């Protein structure tokens, strides 16, 4: 599966990672090679096989809707790159 430069740029935009020109070419070659190795999966007969999203059967776990203590706001904001008046500070989302 040979990826194009545009494929890589599209995926990088979806993943929100800025890439240099060198990285675009390096990832294009490396990801193409890796996907080539994975092509054999297409030949596996999976008709009628259910996908496994999880190794164990999962049941929904419920609890009473009781309010429990959460982390103090100051503790949560202590690792924030920028905080102001008890909030995370970000650049404008809407221009």
């Amino acid at each position, binding site marked *: 599966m040979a990826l194009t430069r545009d494929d890589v740029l599209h995926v990088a935009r979806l993943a929100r990672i800025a890439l240099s020109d060198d990285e675009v070419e390096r990832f294009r070659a490396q990801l193409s090679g890796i996907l080539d190795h994975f092509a054999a999966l297409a030949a596996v007969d999976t008709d009628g096989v259910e996908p496994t999203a999880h190794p164990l059967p999962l049941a929904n776990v419920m609890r009473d809707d009781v309010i429990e203590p959460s982390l103090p706001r100051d*503790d949560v904001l202590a690792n924030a790159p920028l905080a102001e008046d008890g909030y995370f500070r970000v650049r404008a989302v809407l221009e």
Partner: protein
Amino acid sequence: MSDLWKLTAHEAHEGLRRREFTSVELTESVLERVARVEPTINAYITLTAELALEQAREADAKLAAGTATPLTGIPVGVKDLIITKGVRTTAGSKMLENFIPPYDSHVYENLRRAGAVMIGKCNMDEFAMGSSTEHSAFGPTRNPWNPELVPGGSSGGSAAAVAAGECLVALGSDTGGSIRQPAALCGQVGLDPTYGRVSRYGIIAFGSSLDQVGPIGRDVEDVATMLDCIGGHDPRDSTTNPEPMPDLRHYLGRDIRGIRIGVPKEYFISGMEPGVAARIEEALALFESLGAVVDREVSLPSTEHALAVYYIIAPSEASANLARYDGVKYGFSDRSAPTMWENMEQTRAKGFGNEVKRRIMLGTYALSAGYYDAYYLKAQKVRTIISREFAEAFEKYDVLVTPTSPTVAFPLGAKVDDPFAMYLNDIYTLPASVAGLPAISVPCGFSDGLPVGMQIIGNFFDEGRILQVAHAFEQASGYRNLLAPMQ
């Protein structure tokens, strides 16, 4: 008493219990060892010497009061993706270089409750992505058996720390082999528990349907003791098993006469080093001499697809889990660009290393419109087939035995620019991970002077059985407490 760092955890426990030495003396011995070898090995990202001595004093008080457990006062290493309140936790990434967690993980809570002593946070491949611990933002860890070689990964710091005497036991995490492979390459015992045996609360997520915390130690009894401590139900992780934990040390010392051992032939592929194959053959002969029934004609035909299945599913889950690193809530942040989206793209470009970017891109591609069915959904279906083949095998066999890694430790830099060659290191550990099964790696000899690991895979929640088989082998072979021969 200066060589206390050479003891296994259970030997140290006996010494502490008999008042032959104190936890402070034991901890000081380990810290002196760290000071001597750490400049070469780089097994730790953050050392917590003062905290360790404080915890050792608390442990001595518990020992004096008669309230000690088998881990009270024992120096441990903790992989740096396990959250520790007030102690920097980086996941080996620049992205979390200055992150101080505001809470403790479940497993660290349990270690603290048991009275263990934390020496530091162990080096690792960034976000647990790698097989050599070269993908760490804090420099590579080196193999104590030969510092020119890798220790394996991603828990290479944990395995190297145990092998070099920089702690007595350690916690690692395994997504596709990240406990077993470094344990093998460093000559230690590493156990990846059944998915759901150990709570992932407070573990920095990589592949959520695969990640599992587990122990690395110098012998089987030590890893059983560690798993006894950290395993069990946790209401904060709904995927943990609600059944009570069995007493795993109860399985140690039982003989293995009549145990049925299957040896899947698909694991003996071209590319495996002759020295590795020879040690596994010798181990199988030893099992037979102990009365086990060994069948070498087992077939798990979909084994060859496990690598592709893993390297589609794990990066897909990683691409979702690592979306949280946006430079807003915590971690590295680049604010040089004028817009929010550009800030986010620059934060992730500068905060993540190459392997992490590669896997996020791979996962994003596999989940993207037009490719979801061909890659992600297909991989999930083949995962079902792999699990079914294991289930059929466990109707006939108690455990499966394979090599842990096709090679012994390889030179630093040898595979770092060839991602697929690096991925092949995990070819024997991936199938059990994909199926969520428990598996242990134990040392089974040497090839060219370097340790070889043997993997024992068990059925779901059958850790007791694999510990029984591993312990019987260890006692008969004498391969235990293999400290690397460095000064």
